[in-house]
Every structure is written in structure tokens, then in C-alpha cells.
């Protein structure tokens, strides 16, 4: 077993930018562990443009953005161990499976930048047949951009989060026709302008208020989907189904290894410094709450690097209180407060599960201390002001959303 100062798990935007920043701060005993055989994370297979504008002031495609990150890491002498899968976290020791056998490390500090995945068909309990032609956007991107394989000819896209348009672009790249986009909600789950672009430029029908009833087919082949809209059932012929969005953190190893797991965020509870209750562990990027844009993960990586720097320098005793949230809130940050660290004016960031008007309240021991009126869209983050709230140990804070 090796002692190292800093271990970063995941060589995506958050992990690499944290490593770059830590390197700048003078840390050299640092390893990034990556399970894939190349660095770069999810952007590696997002074949379309739209990356790098904020961090590199250039418009890059996902793969070029990933290459840029990877290049920066190697130019700065950062040690990235590829093909290293974290299989266990126990008593501060990290165990990895690698092609050269089992490796163990005991870091002074660990950053979990594990990324996220889309919710597949199974976890949505969708009725119907099973088939290898029922996939997620992530799988479609990997088929079309990484392996140059076209798995089917005509697909139905389920969900209309921003990522579903990435599915459209991947499909276009591979020459796959899209029969329709199906959305359960009354409006699409991203900016309305996109709806018109899809409808009129790409000529793809966007069917809202429609529930996916069944995936039809025999013998592991998809023949159509049945949707339910306005009290009627309708079949749409297709030979593939793409489930998009509903991102969740790659957090199973966290849930297995730590007690303090947050079920709204599906990740570990973290303080305003991204520090967990197991103090030498930090979490950042999509591992904290599902999908954010790559540049947000990149900047969060920089932030957490500074917090890790402080932690290693000062090792101050933290004083933690917990923040809970109701079920309307799909994710929120932070979920812990360290009273020994500064608390910013706009501390809480959150998103709601559904499009809604109402108020978000911060309750301190059951008493409302802050309130904000919102017209929330599920894909936009909301910042909640904290003003001058006096806090002490044993206080209980809760976030609630009350619909109009």
C-alpha cells in the first residue's frame, strides 16, 4: 500500500481542473485515477460543439475539449493512472482493480469526481419487451462517435432535457431517423426555443403530456412504442428507443462506503467547501448531483482544489450542521454547513423536480428565515440568499418549496 498526499478519482472536467489547480498550489504528490483507457470524461463522446467557451475562450467539440484537458494535464506533469477502477473505500484506504493487479493507496485527502450517468429504462420501470436496442444517450454517443456503429435505423427519444438534443445530434451523425420526442411533462424540459428548432428545423415531432406506456416487440427486437396522450393510446413504429436525461451521480461506491448519504442529491452530503462528513473526502462535479455543463464542473474543480489546499494546510476542526430538503427539490448544495468556515451571502443553490411557481423557504429550527419567490424550471439552478443568519451547533435547517 502506498501513502500519497492527494488522490483524485475521475479524469473528467472536475477532476482534471482540480488537479491543475492543486499543481499550481504546489502539490506534486497527486494521482488522478481513471477507469477508462483515456482521460477527458463524458465530453469524450459528446461529438457536438459547445465546449470550452468559458474556460478556454474557444468553441470546441466534446472530444477536442477532452483532448485539451488531457493535454493540459500531461503538460503540467500530472500523473493519471488509466484503467484503474475504484472498487472499495475502507478506513481511508482506496482499493483499485488495475490490469497489473490490485493496488491500494492511503491518501491524506481524496476528491471523488466520479461523474454521472443517465437513468436507464429499468430504473424507470417502463413496461414492455427487453432489447439491446433500448439504450441511453450516453450509449448512443459511444456507439456513434467512439465505435462508429449505427445500432438501429429509426428511434423514439424519451425525455426532452437538454441532453436529448445531444441524442438528436448523435442520431443525425449516424443517419438514424428520429420518429418523435416523447415528454411526460406539459412543456419540454429545456428552453422553449429548442422545441421550435427541433420541430421546424429538424422536422421532428415533440409530443408533450405523453406517457410512454409500453415498448412493443418480440424476440428482443423493438417494433414500436405505445404512448398514452389525451386519454388515447397511439403506436409509433421504431426499432430503437433512446432514454435521455434524469442524470444521477455514479455514487454507488459512496453509498456503499459511507453512512452519510443524501437521497435528494444521490450523493454524499457536503459542506460549502465540498467536504464530506468523513473529513479527508471531498466531492465535486457531476458526482455531487447529476448533470451540470462541463464548464461548471471545470470551475467547481478549481474551487474544490482551493478547499483541499486549506484543509491540508490548516486541518481546522469543522463544526457541522445538516441541511435537509423536501421531495420537490431535485438537488441542492450544500447539504452540510461548516460553521467554522465562512458562509457566503448566496449560499444555497438548488433545482426543483418540476416546472412550478411558488416560494422556496429556508427554515431554521422550523422558523422561516429566508424566502424567495421563484418561477422554477427544472433545468435551471436557483440561488437562495441567506442574509445574516446566526447559526449554532444543533441548529436544524430545512429547505422547502411551497407551490402557489
Amino acid at each position, binding site marked *: 500500500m502506498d501513502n500519497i498526499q492527494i488522490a483524485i478519482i475521475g479524469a473528467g472536467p472536475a477532476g482534471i481542473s482540480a488537479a491543475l489547480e492543486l499543481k499550481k498550489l504546489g502539490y506534486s504528490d497527486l494521482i488522478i485515477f481513471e477507469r477508462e483507457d483515456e482521460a477527458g470524461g463524458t465530453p469524450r463522446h459528446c461529438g457536438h460543439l459547445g465546449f470550452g467557451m468559458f474556460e478556454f475562450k474557444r468553441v470546441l467539440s466534446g472530444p477536442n475539449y477532452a483532448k485539451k484537458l488531457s493535454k493540459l494535464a500531461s503538460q503540467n506533469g500530472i500523473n493519471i493512472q488509466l484503467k484503474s477502477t475504484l472498487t472499495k473505500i475502507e478506513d481511508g484506504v482506496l482499493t483499485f482493480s488495475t490490469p497489473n493487479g490490485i493496488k491500494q493507496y492511503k491518501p491524506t485527502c481524496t476528491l471523488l469526481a466520479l461523474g454521472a450517468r*443517465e437513468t436507464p429504462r*429499468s*430504473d424507470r420501470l417502463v*413496461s414492455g419487451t427487453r432489447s439491446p436496442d433500448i439504450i441511453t444517450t450516453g*450509449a448512443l454517443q459511444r*456507439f456513434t462517435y467512439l465505435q462508429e*456503429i449505427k445500432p438501429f435505423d429509426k428511434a423514439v427519444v424519451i425525455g426532452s432535457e437538454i441532453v436529448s438534443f445531444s441524442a438528436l445530434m448523435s442520431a443525425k451523425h449516424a443517419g438514424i431517423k428520429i420518429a418523435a420526442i416523447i415528454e411526460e411533462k406539459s412543456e419540454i424540459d429545456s428552453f422553449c426555443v429548442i422545441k421550435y428548432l427541433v420541430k421546424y428545423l429538424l422536422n421532428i415531432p415533440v409530443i408533450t403530456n405523453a406517457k410512454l406506456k409500453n415498448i412493443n416487440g418480440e424476440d428482443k427486437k423493438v417494433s414500436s412504442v405505445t404512448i398514452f396522450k389525451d386519454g388515447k393510446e397511439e403506436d409509433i413504429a421504431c426499432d430503437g428507443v433512446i432514454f435521455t436525461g434524469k442524470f444521477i451521480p455514479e455514487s*454507488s461506491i459512496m*453509498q456503499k462506503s459511507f453512512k452519510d448519504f443524501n437521497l435528494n442529491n444521490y450523493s454524499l452530503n457536503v459542506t460549502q467547501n465540498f467536504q464530506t462528513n468523513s473529513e479527508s473526502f471531498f466531492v465535486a462535479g457531476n458526482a455531487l448531483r447529476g448533470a451540470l455543463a462541463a464548464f461548471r464542473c471545470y470551475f467547481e474543480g478549481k474551487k474544490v482544489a482551493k478547499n483541499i489546499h486549506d484543509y491540508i494546510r490548516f486541518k481546522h476542526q469543522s463544526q457541522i450542521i445538516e441541511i435537509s430538503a423536501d421531495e420537490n427539490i431535485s438537488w441542492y448544495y450544500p447539504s452540510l454547513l461548516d460553521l467554522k468556515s465562512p458562509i457566503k451571502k448566496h449560499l444555497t443553490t438548488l433545482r426543483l423536480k418540476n416546472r412550478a411557481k411558488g416560494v422556496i423557504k429556508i427554515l431554521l429550527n422550523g422558523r422561516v428565515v429566508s424566502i424567495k419567490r421563484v418561477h422554477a424550471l427544472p433545468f435551471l439552478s436557483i440561488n437562495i440568499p441567506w442574509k445574516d443568519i446566526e447559526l449554532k451547533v444543533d441548529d436544524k435547517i430545512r429547505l422547502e418549496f411551497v407551490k402557489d
Partner: protein
Amino acid sequence: MEHIDLNNLFPTKTSNFGTNEVFDVAVVGAGVVGTAIFKEFCEQGAKTVLIERANDILEGASKGNSAILHTGYDAPPDTLEHECIQRGYTEYMKIKDEMNLPFLNTKALVVAWNDEQLEKLDAILKKGLGNGVKELETLSHKQVLKREPNLCLDAKGAVLVHGESLIDPWSAPLAYLKKGIACGGKTAFSHEVKAGHYDGKYWELETSQKPIKAKVVINAAGLYGDIVDAIKGTKDFKIIPRKGQFVIFDETAYNLINSIILPVPTKRTKGVVITKTAFGNILVGPTAEDQESRTDSQTLRETLEDLKTKAFYMLPALRNHRVTATFAGLRPASDETYDRVSINEDKNWITAGGIRSTGLTASLGLAKHIFELHNTKYEKNPKADEKITVPNISEFAPRDNQKEGYGKIICHCECVTEREIKNACHGESGAGNIGGLKRRTRAMMGRCQGFNCEAAITKICEDEIKNHG
């Protein structure tokens, strides 16, 4: 861009014997029962062929079950089912180490959730003891919760069945197949038996590929058991496929229970089981839904929701865990189970039909029983004692990713290696489709369901098939 049909990624298998080859025995159906019979007859020295309509083993009833090795504590007393379960259990214990098959003795609790069920526990205990299962005891409410602290407080009491255990439902039949092949047995996948003619000495079976000639036919055709059986001339039973839907929870839930949690059975069904699996998950199911179709294994949202609700009642902490997979299996139920095991001596035809949920445990015992029914002396195969192993894919022993030189891990959720995927593509007992690849490796069976690896695995398989024919 290259279009790849994911359902036809693997080439159709052909047989490696000539049309003039004559077999002692033709086993129809390569489910768990068929493969166990194949192994038994090959070891005993009979010249045997295994005929299967699909391109791989376990494509029918045997692919979806709860993967429990049963003691037979609740089997109908003094029946063939009872005998075969216990014989099968003993036999499995004999071969498991040699074949590298996993086994975890978790024990089972038959839990009573109300007073009415509590009253039935005594009868369950007595029946078990009567069935020769000695290691049984009754536990009080307090004892149940001590053993299973995460169970709902409504648990009134339970019968603890010490012998109930977990096995890998896919590797065991694969090991049986490989053993049969090693002993010289032949296979004919993608050969659907369409008709047959008996000339008083030999059966000539007409298949979707070439005809196959054998002295004796053993029908282990599972969901198609009645159709194949009619070939002998009489229609003795009807298969009524019984669908069982399952929900699999993520590995994060694995430690919520220690034992298999069984319900007190009702007249209609054995009820919903909660158990760990050999692959590190929690399984909830099955349902019992009779249907006409032999192929429709669709899941239904409402049923899956209902399974979740039932499981959350019994094991409230399960709520905090995600669903990894959902699936449905079809059991080949018939009007009378196990009575469908019979021999027609005039026609040299043996039927092993209507073997339902206990088939996984009973298969090895049933194979012995059928060999006795067959009542023919052969010269024991010299290779019968040869050691045949299958790769371990369970969580109960070290897996390939713990051994050096595996290339890289391809399926991250289930930690499946490139080497495992490649190996599963090869040979007579290699995968015949993506489902078969999944059952041999666990690839794409985890929480992301292929988000990360389906494309890469497709590519690896395609290359392997191209390069190795």
C-alpha cells in the same frame, strides 16, 4: 457508418456432426434440465446430442429465476419433485468446487407478517421435518429482528431453514454443457425440432437445420414441452406458461439482509421473495401470472411498482436504493407438475415436462432419475472424471478483475474485463447472442445498463467474431 444488428451480432451455430451419425440419446432443450441430462448421459457413456431451438443455452424458462438452491422443506411430500430437489441439492454440493461453481449458505427465513400466517409456521416446520430437512427452527419476533434488523417490525415470527442457499443460475448449466461436450457429447443449437418419425428402432427428428437420428429422445423442451411431446403421438399435457416478474436492486442494498426472506405461501403462489444474489444485488420477485404466450416476457410497470411496494413494506430501507434491472421469466407450468416425468418404452421416448421453479435445484437429481428410468448399461465415459471448470462471475470468490493481465475493465458497474468478454465469445459453448454474453460475464447487467459499455462490448464481440470465425 456501419449498421450492426445487435440481435444478430453472433453467427448462427451449426452442428459438428454428419447426417448419418446415430446417437444413443437426443436431448431436446438446452435449459437447466436439458443441460443437466446432457451431462449425466455423456458421463455415463451414452452417445448424446443436445438439440436446442435457440442459438444458446438458457434461452427459455431457465434464464430468469430467483437463483436459490432449495432444501425441499416445502416440497410436496413423497413426490418425485421432493426426491429430485434433495438429490439435486446433494449432487450440486458434490460438484460445485470441482466445477468452480459458487455457493453461499445464507439460510432462509419464512416470515409470518400477521397472526394468520403465524399460525401456519408450525405446519411449515412439521412439513419440513417430514420432508427430511432436519435443520429447521422457529424464531420469535425478537429473534427474527435480531437476525434481520432491517426487516419491518411487523414480522411476527419465522421458520429458519438452514440449508437454503444462493447459487449462480447461469454458470451451473454452462458447466453442465461444457462437461457434456468434454465427454464427447454433440450440440445442435439453432435446430428447432419440427417433427419426428420412429421406425421401431430409431427416431429421426426433423429440425430447422438437418435431421438428427437417435435411439431415444428425451424431451426437456420446457416452455415447448407439450409441442415436442406431441411428436411421440399422444398429447398428454399442456404447458401453461407462468410469468414471473422480478426487480433487481443495486449492490448498495446488498447488506440490508442476511438471509433469504420467504413468504408464507398461499394456495396460488409461493409469494414474493427478497434475496441477495450471487452477483451482489438484491432480488425481489417473482409474480405468478398464467398466460398463453410462450415468448412474451414483457414487464408491466404496475406489476413492478407493486413488487416494489411489497418489498418496501417488508424491508423499508430498500426505498433508499435504486433499481438496477427489471425482467420477467416464464415458468413452464403444466396442469400437473413433475407427474410429467415419464417414459414411453414402446416409443423410446422420455418426457421431463412441466418442471417449474424448482428446476434449478432439481435438475441434477432429475438427470439421475431419468438415467435410471432409461435403464440401459453403457461403458462409463473415460472423461467423466475429468475436471471441467467455468469462470467464476459471482461475488463469492475472486473474479477476473482481481487477476493480472485482463486488459481493461469494460463494464464498470459489474467490473467485467475485456478478457472475460473475449473468452465468452469463443467455442462451442460460447455465447450465441448478447443475452448469452451477459449471462456468461454479467456485462451490461449493472446499474447503468450499458450506458458506459454497450458500444465498446459490441465492438469487441464484432472483432472477436471476425478474427476467430
